[in-house]
């Protein structure tokens, strides 16, 4: 049976034990990087994941691509459980799901030519394309807007934007159906970011790809995502269709995050009515009891400290984890 979803995560948990061991009877502590996240990626669409540093979005990306094994939970790829896949099975699933990384400098081997870099997945998978490996790489280079004549060049001869195109070509050569992109444009200049975002949108259309797109830049995610999940301290606090979440955020954190984004229009002087979050994100080793956002939330009550809110339907197809969701649609910007 083919599922509607290209990728599903069910109650995913990833704890990293900290260096402190259990000697002298002290309990071992865990960094609770991802703490009970469920998500689903509909075929051919883009799921954006936003949140501040340390909220667990990159760990989540590594868990769903099985670069690391979750502590708990289940990952379904095309309806098939890959949570504990290993060996051959793991290698086979990697042809379906590929990753694009943030830093186009450290994610490409400086001693390998572009041709070697882009064709590496073929060697790992021991695949021999019918048209020949070199020809296949040429096609990929053309697809992402690189000049195939640069086959023998090395990464340092390319600019940041071009390197990211190399990374994208490498991720596409196995013909995957899902791309997980972890901050793919945040290391690039604005004008180059736009080039890469447009390229990714075009590739999605022509190849029917599904994307998990992770970024801290809310406007970038808004631009590309159909659905968006907002994370805070290892949990999803709000998730839903991108236009719904962006135009009328329901979770106080979503609202604060959106209102903190500087707007490139001096006439909208919304600095005055901006929600100012005070303080910093608490430590994921000892997250606050109840709702994790309560220590920075202006609506928090006793209930928030005692009872953890679960993700519930919050109207217009969204889910929100808050005891006091914002009801009036607040239009951002206009």
């Amino acid at each position: 049976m083919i599922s509607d979803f290209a990728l599903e995560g069910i109650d995913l948990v990833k704890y990293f034990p900290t260096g402190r061991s259990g000697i002298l009877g002290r309990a071992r502590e865990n960094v609770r990087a991802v703490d009970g996240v469920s998500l689903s990626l509909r075929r051919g669409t883009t799921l954006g994941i936003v949140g501040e540093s340390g909220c667990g979005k990159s760990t989540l990306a590594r868990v769903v691509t099985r670069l690391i094994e979750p502590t708990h939970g289940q990952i379904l790829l095309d309806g098939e459980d890959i949570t504990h896949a290993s060996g051959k099975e793991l290698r086979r699933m990697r042809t379906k799901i590929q990753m694009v990384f943030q830093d186009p400098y450290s994610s490409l081997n400086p001693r390998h030519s572009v041709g070697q870099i882009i064709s590496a997945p073929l060697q790992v998978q021991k695949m021999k394309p019918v048209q020949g490996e070199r020809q296949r790489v040429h096609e990929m280079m053309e697809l992402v807007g690189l000049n195939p004549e640069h086959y023998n060049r090395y990464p340092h001869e390319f600019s940041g934007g071009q390197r990211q195109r190399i990374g994208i070509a490498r991720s596409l050569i196995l013909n995957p159906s899902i791309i997980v992109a972890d901050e793919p444009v945040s290391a690039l200049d604005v004008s180059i970011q736009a080039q890469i975002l447009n390229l990714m949108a075009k590739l999605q259309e022509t190849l029917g790809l599904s994307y998990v797109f992770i970024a801290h830049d809310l406007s970038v995610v808004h631009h590309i995502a159909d659905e968006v999940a907002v994370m805070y301290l290892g949990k999803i606090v709000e998730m839903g269709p991108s236009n719904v979440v962006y135009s009328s955020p329901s979770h106080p954190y979503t609202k604060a995050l959106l209102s903190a984004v500087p707007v490139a229009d001096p006439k909208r002087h919304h600095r005055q009515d901006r929600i100012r979050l005070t303080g910093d994100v608490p430590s994921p080793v000892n997250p606050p009891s109840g709702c994790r956002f309560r220590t920075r939330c202006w609506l928090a009550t006793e209930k928030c400290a005692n009872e953890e809110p679960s993700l519930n339907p919050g109207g217009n197809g969204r889910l929100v984890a808050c005891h006091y969701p914002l009801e009036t649609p607040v239009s951002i910007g206009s």
Partner: protein
Amino acid sequence: MTSSLLSVTDLNVSFDTPDGVVRAVSDVSFTVSAGETLGIVGESGSGKSVTASSILRLNSSTNATTTGSAVLAGTDMLTCSDAEVRARRGSEVAMVFQDPLSALNPYYTVGRQIGEAYQVHHPDASKAEVRERVMDMLTKVGIPHPEQRVDEYPHQFSGGMRQRIVIAIALVNSPKLLIADEPTTALDVTVQAQILDLMLSLQAENKMAIILITHDLGVVAEVAQNVLVMYGGRIVERASVDALFDAPTHPYAWGLLGAVGSLDHNKRGELRTVIGTPPSLITLPPGCSFAPRCEYAHSVGSVCTTTVPMLRNIGHLGSFSACHMSDEQIIQIGSKVRA
């Protein structure tokens, strides 16, 4: 005479490297008055950071050649003696850098680092006076429980709190000009908002001028009054922030503004892009350095690839643009960019 606090004229900075001469800054002139916030925007390698660090004479390494002048409150920072530069660093002009962790010394408590900056300009201050000033600064930049945190080390602070410490060091001698080079780039948006608010409130308190270097047009729109747009080491547009966002007057600015994503869901769709990549500062193209990426260059003619365009006043807008197109053309196209 002008009443400007800082007046930079014909600044040129080049670096002699094994690969050739890097022309980092070419013919840059601008002024900043007291209390003003000037934004400098541009992509990596556009010369914005080198322009700023030249004002503090931080580029005086052996391979750098700097010409022009940067007159700060009557003293040319580029030609005065080393002693004079030292006397002015910190007290008249101070700098905040992008990465607060590498700007702080991990081996010293934050209190010691703030105190040290104060003592450089107040060598006769007693220990108690220094301590009092340090506590005062920690309170001003919004560090909770300063009496306890003053003796902690940088690694015990979060990114946003570290940047507050760096700002405290920069402002401990009440400088007249603060140069902030991407001060919030390493921070999350909610923390960025806190730091920008802090900088603006401290500015209002003592009429300090700020030069804010950033690649984020949103940050510029929110805090600056005037903006320089740099490309290939030159200023390509100089405008008030309202004029820049209403009707930009340089093709590069058109591209930049079009490339910014929006949170407004009615404005989704393909982003405008600037084709190609920024030029190498070693082999700058002759003529306008933006010409190879400019979609209008071919319609203007060969002048774009032979002659460097000078900054000139465009129409009634009060904006200055370095473009060979006619005023009418620029006004016509510029008014549509944001529509």
